[in-house]
């Protein structure tokens, strides 16, 4: 299974970068989201995956009696997801503003700040 | 009516606490038990409405289930057979129900049964536009709805 998941992660990374390279503001954001998902899944995968054993101590017991999946990557990803949400919201608004002020969606036309003044 | 319902719930809770068993069956049993107890101890028409309502509600529920299953089967046949037999259309159903809640309930009931779909309510809340897969006759379709869901909604909510 891990093989498939690893390929999935690679696909997310590849498609994320590909979308970022597409010159379009909207695609840029989509690319960033895809990349973020890829990174989260990578943490998840490399923390090793396990099926059907959520890291929740059951019922009345005080410790795990059976196998449990690693909770730490999950906590990390949670943090990462939330942070990316903050960044994405900002990005979406930034793109909206940039489009409105700069009047273009073509990133190739946004090169005035790299011009010499 | 609200008091009755609350009393009913309270009694249920007491029952559950007494028996100490928090299973769904026990709670259901407690509810029915206390309902009957309340039914027995209550007199007067004003207070009796709660006890008329509950059976209607249950009736409504089963009517809805019936419609749901019936329509699902109808759709199953439609989907499962190679040919398409639909005669779809959008019909404006004049409304007798008035409050927003009633309209919403009616519209949702109609939508929830497969094959029909509430598209919109007119600005003056007098007409409900319903999309349906099988319309042979506008009046018949309207009557179905008015005698079916709308009548029952009016019963339970007024």
């Amino acid at each position, binding site marked *: 299974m891990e093989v498939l998941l690893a390929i999935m992660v690679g696909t997310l990374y590849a498609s994320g970068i590909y979308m970022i390279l597409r010159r379009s503001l909207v695609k840029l954001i989509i690319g960033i989201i895809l990349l973020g998902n890829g990174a989260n899944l990578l943490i998840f995968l490399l923390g090793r995956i396990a*099926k*059907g*054993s*959520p890291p929740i101590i059951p019922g009345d017991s005080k410790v795990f009696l059976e196998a449990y999946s690693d909770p730490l990557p999950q906590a990390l990803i949670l943090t990462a997801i939330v942070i990316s949400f903050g960044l994405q919201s900002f990005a979406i608004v930034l793109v909206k503003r940039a489009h409105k002020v700069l009047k273009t969606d073509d990133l190739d036309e946004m090169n005035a700040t790299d011009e010499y003044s | 009516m609200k008091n009755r319902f609350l009393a009913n719930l309270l009694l249920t809770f007491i029952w559950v606490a007494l028996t100490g068993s928090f299973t769904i069956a026990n709670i259901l049993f407690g509810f029915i038990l206390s309902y009957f107890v309340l039914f027995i101890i209550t007199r007067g028409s004003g207070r009796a409405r709660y006890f008329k309502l509950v059976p209607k509600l249950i009736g409504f529920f089963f009517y809805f289930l019936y419609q749901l299953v019936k329509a699902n089967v109808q759709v199953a046949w439609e989907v499962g057979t190679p040919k398409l037999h639909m005669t779809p259309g959008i019909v404006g159903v004049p409304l007798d129900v008035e409050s927003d809640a009633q309209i919403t309930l009616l519209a949702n009931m109609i939508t929830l049964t497969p094959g029909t779909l509430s598209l919109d309510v007119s600005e003056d809340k007098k007409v409900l536009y319903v999309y349906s897969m099988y319309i042979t006759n506008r009046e018949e379709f309207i009557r179905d709805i008015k005698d079916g869901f709308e009548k029952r909604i009016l019963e339970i909510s007024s």
Partner: protein
Amino acid sequence: MTLDNYLYYIILPALSIAILLVFFRFFKGPSISDRVVAVDLLVTIGIGVIAVYSILSHQPTFLDIALILALIGFLATVAYSFYIQKRKDRDK
């Protein structure tokens, strides 16, 4: 045949097929509404899959996710239809 096996070999595959069918509609479109309907249906079937999976793994915890799916998936649909109503015919 135990319940687990039944769920695993019959029910879950059937749901999977349903998902594939719906996904195919998502692919085909053709209108954005069709896709939204498809996604909405996907989420709904997802709830079912989660329910079956929670039985299979004996973890009622997963049902909580179903709860969230039911609540929040709706909001996405609201948002889509909000957008469809709002936007101009730029998109085609």
